[in-house]
Structure formats: C-alpha cells, structure tokens
C-alpha cells in the first residue's frame, strides 16, 4: 500500500497529484480556497447515513469544492478526515508546536503516527478534538465534510471523533456509570433518539464490560479515581465501546501497559473495528502495531509529518531509529 499523505506544508497541487492515491481521482479545482470559511447548515450536521448522502447537494448549494471532497472515494471508501497545513501554537506561551500537518484518512483505515517525544503527535490529536491548551493558527481540518475547527469540543465528539486520552483525568464524585450515561444521552439527543435512564443504561453498558475485560464494580467507581494506568486505558476503550466513533484517535494507548493489558486493550480495539470506522493511533513503540495493524504509518517530526509509508516503516524505525528516517 502506498502512502497518501503529503509532506508539503504549502498547497502545491503537483505534489498532491504526484501521489498515487490522488492520481486515480480527478481534482478539477485547485484546492486553494480557505476551508475554514465553509459552513454547513446545522440541520445537515446529523450523522446518520442518509443525511450524509445528501451532502453533495448541500455542497452544490454552497458551491465550494471542498464539499465535493467528502464524497471523494477511494476504492469505494469515503473520505473521513482531511487535514491540510495545520499549524498551531500553545495557547499560553504562543510557542509554535504544529508546523503544517497534512493527513488524509478514509473510512475503515487504520493509521499510526509515530515520532519522538515532543514531535507534536499528541498535540496534533488534541488539536483535532479542540483542546483549549492549543490555538490553531492556520490550515484546515475537515471531518465528514464539516469544518472541524469551527466546532466546539463537544460537537466534535458528537459528530463522531473520539480521542482516548494519554493520561485521562480523574473526576472524584462522578461515577463511571453516571459519566457514561451523560455522554451516551448527549449522543442520543444529538441523534434524536430516546435517552436512557440509569437502570436501562446499566443493562446497556453491562454487555460492553466484557469487551474490555472489566468487572461490574468498575461502573460504580468514580471516573479514573484511584485507577491504575491499565485501568485508565481500559476505561477509555470502554467509553469508545459505549459511545462508538467514526474516527477513534488513540493517544499512546499502549503507554504504561504490561503485555497482558496491552493485549486486552488491543483486542477490544480490534473488536470495535468495522469496514466503516477508522483508527488513528499515536505511539512510540512498534509493539502496539503487532496487535493493531495499521495500513499507514506516518512519522512526525518538528510539528509536521515528514514521512509516510506502510507497516515496513515501523520495522525500519525499530532498527534504525528516527535518525535513520530523517536521514533516509
């Protein structure tokens, strides 16, 4: 499988067309307009399939090419996320941290981003979900045809992006069950479906516990309070299992896990994969990739993706280190 992620930080159409994936498509209009200016009417934000099919009509109405890009298909798969030239700074210090990230993810694909500490991997995932510690200074991020950067964090979540936190925060006084119930009901509301009361929800979520190999009492404990590293990660995956997502961003889901726990978590993630949803893993280590197999590996350095390849890139990395990559 070939890479389909541009390493350029400027919008150079020739660069895009040199890309095998894009060569199979005809991009009639140069993508130079600002994507962040596109607004989709709220009523079309619903995430059910039928309304998604209507999107091209909407796109036609606003007459912007980027809308058409959502209907872009690769081997029958729809474009899910398209990030272009994304730059960001740390809100407090205004220090530059993302320097033009480009990434495209289609439905059903598994991607991994690897890179050294401080290369911007985790920042990138946090920026995608709207973390307030970071401020986007340029570029675009389109998710299912919608401008992600214009959305509040909760809207991004409801539209189908889920990020598992590297170190999820503890919330004393709020039980796991209540927290999940709130999140589940927010989703149901968004979809116009009935909300579940605590008892109904309990039986709904009960079936998901097996998937992450967790016991019942897990639900009665406060969110991440007193949880071991492994329990925190499992809890993130439990949330993913209960809430579902079109794109799951797993930020170092493998850190702090022993092999058994890693296998549990990986099994759970694999169990959630369908032909339509996608995974973006952020990791340091190849061992995670032995359990969850990505089709694409991206190497991040200095706030941008500097190389994209298939799984062989990971083994190369394992042997040569990041130095080998940048020198190559």
């Amino acid at each position: 499988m070939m890479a389909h992620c541009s390493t350029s930080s400027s919008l150079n159409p020739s660069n895009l067309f040199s890309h095998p994936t894009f060569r199979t498509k005809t991009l009639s209009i140069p993508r130079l307009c600002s994507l962040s200016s596109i607004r989709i009417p709220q009523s079309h934000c619903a995430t059910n399939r039928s309304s998604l099919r209507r999107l091209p009509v909407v796109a036609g109405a606003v007459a912007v090419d980027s809308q058409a890009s959502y209907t872009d298909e690769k081997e029958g798969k729809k474009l899910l996320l398209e990030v272009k030239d994304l730059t960001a700074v740390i809100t407090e210090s205004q220090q530059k941290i993302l320097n033009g990230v480009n990434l495209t993810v289609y439905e059903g694909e598994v991607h991994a981003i690897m890179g050294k500490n401080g290369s911007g991997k985790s920042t990138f995932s946090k920026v995608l979900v709207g973390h307030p510690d970071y401020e986007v200074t340029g570029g675009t991020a389109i998710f299912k045809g919608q401008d992600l950067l214009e959305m509040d964090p909760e809207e991004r979540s409801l539209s189908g992006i889920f990020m598992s936190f590297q170190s999820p925060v503890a919330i004393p006084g709020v039980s796991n069950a209540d927290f999940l119930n709130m999140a589940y009901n927010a989703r149901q509301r968004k979809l116009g479906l009935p909300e579940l009361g605590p008892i109904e929800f309990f039986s709904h979520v009960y079936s998901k516990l097996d998937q992450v190999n967790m016991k019942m009492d897990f639900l009665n404990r406060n969110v991440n309070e007193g949880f071991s590293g492994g329990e925190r990660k499992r809890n993130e995956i439990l949330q993913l299992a209960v809430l579902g997502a079109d794109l799951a961003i797993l930020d170092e889901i493998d850190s702090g896990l022993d092999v058994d726990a890693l296998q549990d978590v990986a099994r759970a993630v694999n169990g959630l994969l369908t032909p339509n949803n996608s995974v973006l893993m952020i990791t340091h280590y190849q061992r995670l990739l032995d359990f969850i197999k990505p089709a694409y590996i991206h190497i991040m350095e200095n706030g941008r993706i500097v190389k994209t390849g298939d799984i062989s890139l990971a083994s190369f990395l394992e042997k040569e280190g990041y130095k080998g990559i940048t020198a190559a």
Partner: protein
Amino acid sequence: APLPLQKLRDSSSETLLSLSWPTRKDEPYRFTDTSYIKSSEIQPITNPPQESDFSSVSEDTHLPNITIIDGYLVETLSGLSGLPEGVYVGSLSKLSSEGILKRLSEFVSNVEGDLFWSLNGVGAPDLIVVYVPEGCRVNAPLNLRYCSVKGSDVGSNTLPVSNPRVLMLVEKGGEVGIVEEFVGGDGNKCYWTNSVLEVIIGEGATFSHSYVQTQSLGAAHIKWTSIRQESASTYKLVEFSSGGKLSRHNLHVQQVGPDTVTELSTLHLSINDQTQDLHSSLILDHPRGYTNQLHKCIVGHPRGQAVFDGNVRVNRYAQQTDAGQLTRSLLLVPQATVNVKPNLQIIADDVKCSHGAAISDLEEDQLFYFQARGIDLETARKALIYSFGAEVIDRIPFAYVREKAKSHIAELLVPTVKSIA
C-alpha cells in the same frame, strides 16, 4: 424555672456583663461582618407560637421528631413514638426524673462560649432535653426541626430573634443519631435564629449528628455546637448549610478522655449574596484521639463569601493523636470571596497530623474531559459542582436527609450554572 435553666440564665447574664458586640478587630470575627444583626432592631420573641402559625410548618416529617418553632417546643407538631424506654426527649420543665435532672445540672453551661452563646442562655425560653440512658441504642434518627415563623420584610430593619437551646446527654455506651434541620420563611423573610446545642457524649458512646441549614436568605443564623467527648466516644458530624444572609456555625469539640473518634464533614454553599462561616475548634488533651475534618465550600456570587477557621489543638498529653484536616473551596465567579484559616497547633511530640487547603475554580482538564465525550459545558459544570458537594453529602448517614440535601443543591445550582456557563 427548673434549677438547670435558672442556673443557665444566671451564669449567662453574668458573662454577658463582660462581653461586648464583636467587631472586625476581634480575631474570631475578623472576616465575618455581623453588622447585619447589630444595625437591625432586634425583637426578642417572647410568646410561644399560636396555632395559626402552624400552617406554615411543613407536615413532611420523619419520626421520631420534635418541632421547635421560634425557640419553643411544639408538642402537637411532634411525634416521639418508638423511642426506647428510658430515653427522654422534651422540655426540661416536663422532666419528672430527679435522676436525669441531677445529671443534667452537672453539665449545664460548663463551656465558655461567646456573646451569642450567652445571649442564647439569657433568651432561651426553655431547655429542650435529649437524654439517652446507659447502654441504650436508639435506632431511628431523632429529628429536631427548627422552624422560624416570625419574620419581618426586607428593608424593615427589624429582626425577630429566637433562642432555641438543646441539651443532650448520651450516657455510657449509648448510641443515637440526630438530624437538626433549620428551615423557615418564604424567600427573603428576615429573622435571627440564635441557637445552641450542647452535647455530652459519655464513655464509649456514639453520637451521629446531621445538621442541615436552609433558612431564608434574609435570615441571620448563629449556631453553637458544643461537644464534650468522654473516653472512647465517637462523634460524627455532617453539616450542609446553604441558607441565611449571615450564617455562622461555632463548633467546639472538647476531648475529656483518651481514644476518641471525631469526624467533622461540612459543606457550605454561598450561591447568593450571603456569608457562610464555620469556626471550629477541636481540643485534644488525651492520648490516641483520632480526628478527621473535611470542610468544603462553594461560592457562586460576586458578593458571596465563605469563611473557615479550623483550629485543631493537640495538647501536651494528647500523644499518638491522629489528626487530619482538609479544606477545599470552589470559587465559581470573579470576586467571590473565601477566607480560610486552617490551623493545627501541636504541642505533643508523638503524633500524626496532616492538613491541607485548596482554593480553585472548576478544573479545566475535567471540564474538557466531559466535552471530549460530547457533554456540553453547562452540564459538565453542574456535574462537577454537584460532585464537589456530594463528597460531604454522601457522608450523611440517613438516606432521606441525603436526598433532601441533594435536591436542594440541584435547585440552587440551576440558575448559577446557567449564568456562569
């Protein structure tokens, strides 16, 4: 008047002579402005409530219960069925047992209070007695409902004052729980409740104390709780206070024997233009005491204030004391004020003591975690504020009191969360 009451009045009148109204220059009132009371025309309530006053008292009660209106015990609104034999709950004047009377006389007004303590001693129309005999276990919690019926309108500058006073004696090995609930007045009715509860917990006895204060937002609420703990006794307090324009709780726990257990959990809410104040002092003079204090407050109004002065004194002979104290304050709006002064004074050298104080707004990280799971900011704030308080509320041992407190918090938070979200 019966002897103990006369004794109380005499000693209180005497101490009053040497006391003056506290000012901001007096350390115990440095942060708490009592001018709301001082600048009002104070009208002592000198007549028992009339039947016409009863209509405003809710009938929603749990048994056994006594209802105290404006400082007077109202028997027709009280129900004491089901209490074990030998337990006495009622007016001192109706107490026929010479033995109990003699025991009570030993303890009346042994503790030094302050001006408000003495004013109560002079003004209390009656002494309400709770007596639990040796080895007696009272299963159902005893409800003490304090209702303030007489009140003036906002701006009238008058404060009818009531002085309820309860003396409680739990004899050796006895076990009892009480729920003190202070209510009264629709909306902003103005009155002053100046209340005193004095408790002696005998050797090995257990007293579980729930105190819920939801008086009107025009009320001044001054409350003294004075506890004397004999050896191996247990005292557990859970307080929830959200009412009053000016609310002050003076809590004094004196250890008079070794191996005591003391747990104090308090939650103060200043969601309106109001002051909530807890001044607690815990004095340990004997070995192997265990104490744990958790004080939490939430201030959600630019003119709202919370004050906490928590003193734990581990004196010379209180070796092997295990004392912990923690205070956490949540300030939800700019200009909300909290004055906290946690302090441990340790003279003994073989002790384990810890304390901590934290003042914060809601944690950004926690709020974002909710949002990242699709939960909007308003719901997230509400859940976090609620859970902050729940840590204390969940310690109330009686489910119906917990539920009441929780729904009260939820009600108070609706407009606040809306305005700050």
